[in-house]
């Protein structure tokens, strides 16, 4: 059953998710002005699935149930599915200019599906069956699931078991006949509050001493003992200002991250997907990270499309659109953005089937994709700021532009002066110019910069994590042989 966007919003209200912000419990978090834009992003993934103009990417037939489902709940069955995933993400980025948060769940589904199959094969466990039953439930109810991987990690020089505080990596505190009790936390969890469910995965490869930390499971977002502390974003309290609109840059949409705390949460046996098989922690992490690094070749490209459009509009509104250097900068932004897309499509096209039957991306190309994402968005926003001009960070507030306070010798208001002095090309009103500049301010250094800049740097793993994978997958030995053959070295 596909939910509508409205049904999704109502389904969130039925949850007893515990959310804290600014040291207080937020009871009506669904309508909170700082949280709601991020919920609207997830809502968009439901709305687009209902629209015939987008359904070909947003929906797909489930290999588990045969029913039409939202692609965000799908197990990739081909390289075409992998490519369509990237295209869908580009689309969602274009429609929100934000992180729409639902990819982490999709990437977790595909990583857990293939890993549990191989764990069961080695250990005779029933994790794969547990997971397939769980995913059917997710697909049938069209749920949003947060794929949660990143632990606080404490002292980076110490393994999980060697930390002074054992809770700095999420771990099994107690094993019971009917399940386990888990304790710890997951940091900077994208979309966690907007998710119906959570899938937890270990954060890194582990050794035998870390057995209790090699754990994967699913639980509802409102499970007993689970709560979230909302992450701050640059300029976030602008959203709390009365009648805020233009100054927000993107009033409707935004991203969300939170600290998710597991304060002794009970997980029943049928929701456990890994429980002490430490030798598979690395495989799960590598596969999830691979999918997630592919994801960035779609979502950030969609956001980049909006930024390029906004920069071009800023040039039009400034009256500078004919300048050759402006045209050249827009070309460069497009070149960078489409290069990211090429990487997303390439690692998908070179995908291959796992033992479990779903498709995995090409790891080398996915890591190259994400490595580029740690750089190109920064250059794209630098060029956007260059084109926009300094006004994007120096112009007065919306309240000033609308002020009727008389301050001029001839009775002019503050609004009159602001509108007079910030009018540029006749193709746009002063308010339209303000709107596009505030959009760029928000994405370059406001609350949306969290998603477009720093998330591009650290999301799905920091740059060094990709370089390690590129080093492992780079096939230098074969390249040496190529050189030897050409150079006549035996």
């Amino acid at each position, binding site marked *: 059953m596909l939910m509508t966007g409205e049904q999704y919003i109502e389904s969130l209200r039925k949850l007893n998710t515990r959310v804290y912000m600014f040291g207080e419990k937020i009871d009506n978090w669904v309508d909170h002005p700082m949280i709601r834009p991020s919920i609207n992003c997830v809502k968009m993934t439901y709305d687009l699935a209902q629209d015939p*103009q*987008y*359904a070909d*990417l947003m929906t797909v037939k489930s290999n588990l149930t045969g029913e039409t489902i939202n692609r965000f709940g799908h197990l990739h069955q081909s390289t075409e599915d992998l490519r369509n995933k990237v295209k869908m993400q580009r*689309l969602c980025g274009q429609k929100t200019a934000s992180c729409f948060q639902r990819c982490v769940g999709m990437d977790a589904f595909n990583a857990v599906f293939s890993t549990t199959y191989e764990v069961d094969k080695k250990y005779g466990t029933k994790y794969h069956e547990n997971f397939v039953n769980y995913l059917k439930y997710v697909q049938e109810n069209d749920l949003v699931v947060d794929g949660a991987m990143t632990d606080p990690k404490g002292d980076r020089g110490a393994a999980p078991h060697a930390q002074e505080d054992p809770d700095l990596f999420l771990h099994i505190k107690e094993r019971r006949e009917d399940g386990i009790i888990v304790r710890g936390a997951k940091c900077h969890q994208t979309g966690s509050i907007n998710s119906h469910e959570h899938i937890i995965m270990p954060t890194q490869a582990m050794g035998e001493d870390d057995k209790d930390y090699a754990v994967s499971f699913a639980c509802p977002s409102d499970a007993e003992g689970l709560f979230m502390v909302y992450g701050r974003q640059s300029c976030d309290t602008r959203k709390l200002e009365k009648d805020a609109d233009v100054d927000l840059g993107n009033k409707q949409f935004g991203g969300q991250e939170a600290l998710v705390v597991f304060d002794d949460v009970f997980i029943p046996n049928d929701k456990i997907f890994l429980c002490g098989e430490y030798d598979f922690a690395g495989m799960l992490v590598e596969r999830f990270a691979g999918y997630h690094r592919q994801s960035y070749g779609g979502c950030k490209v*969609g956001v980049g499309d909006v930024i390029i459009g906004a920069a071009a509009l800023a040039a039009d509104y400034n009256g500078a659109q004919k300048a050759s250097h402006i045209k050249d900068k827009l070309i460069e932004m497009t070149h960078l953005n489409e290069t990211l897309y090429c990487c997303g499509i390439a690692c998908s096209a070179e995908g291959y089937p796992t033992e479990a039957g779903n498709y995995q991306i090409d790891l080398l190309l996915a890591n190259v994709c994400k490595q580029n994402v740690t750089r190109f968005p920064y250059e794209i926003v630098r060029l956007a700021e260059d084109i926009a001009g300094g006004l994007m960070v120096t112009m007065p507030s919306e309240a000033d532009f609308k002020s009727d306070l008389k301050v001029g010798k001839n009775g002019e208001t503050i609004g009159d002066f602001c509108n007079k002095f910030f009018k540029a090309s006749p193709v746009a009103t002063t308010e339209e110019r303000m709107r596009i500049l505030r959009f760029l301010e928000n994405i370059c250094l406001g609350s949306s910069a969290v998603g477009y800049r720093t998330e591009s740097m650290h999301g799905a793993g920091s740059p060094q994590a990709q370089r390690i994978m590129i080093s492992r997958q780079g096939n230098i030995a074969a390249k040496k042989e190529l050189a030897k053959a050409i150079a006549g070295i035996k």
Partner: protein
Amino acid sequence: MICGVKFCGGCNPRYDRGKAFEDIKKERPDIEFAIAREGEKYDFLIVIGGCTSCCASHCQYTYEQGLIKMWDREHIDKVLDKLDEVATKIDGK
């Protein structure tokens, strides 16, 4: 004549696909157009893509007189001609 319509997913369309469809409908008011659904039968199918790859899936649909793909606004005339050709063929049966 019933004509099924399938849009691509719209990841980066080069023109307004929805507007193109509206224009086609306006030009041929006698033809019944419907968003294609599996299990339904159509005389003809139009696949409206947003770019040259025109990657929309369509094998799952049933259509008796073939299909036409468009991926550019300028293809509208070609689509209208094809619709007329199919309509004439059906009328002649």
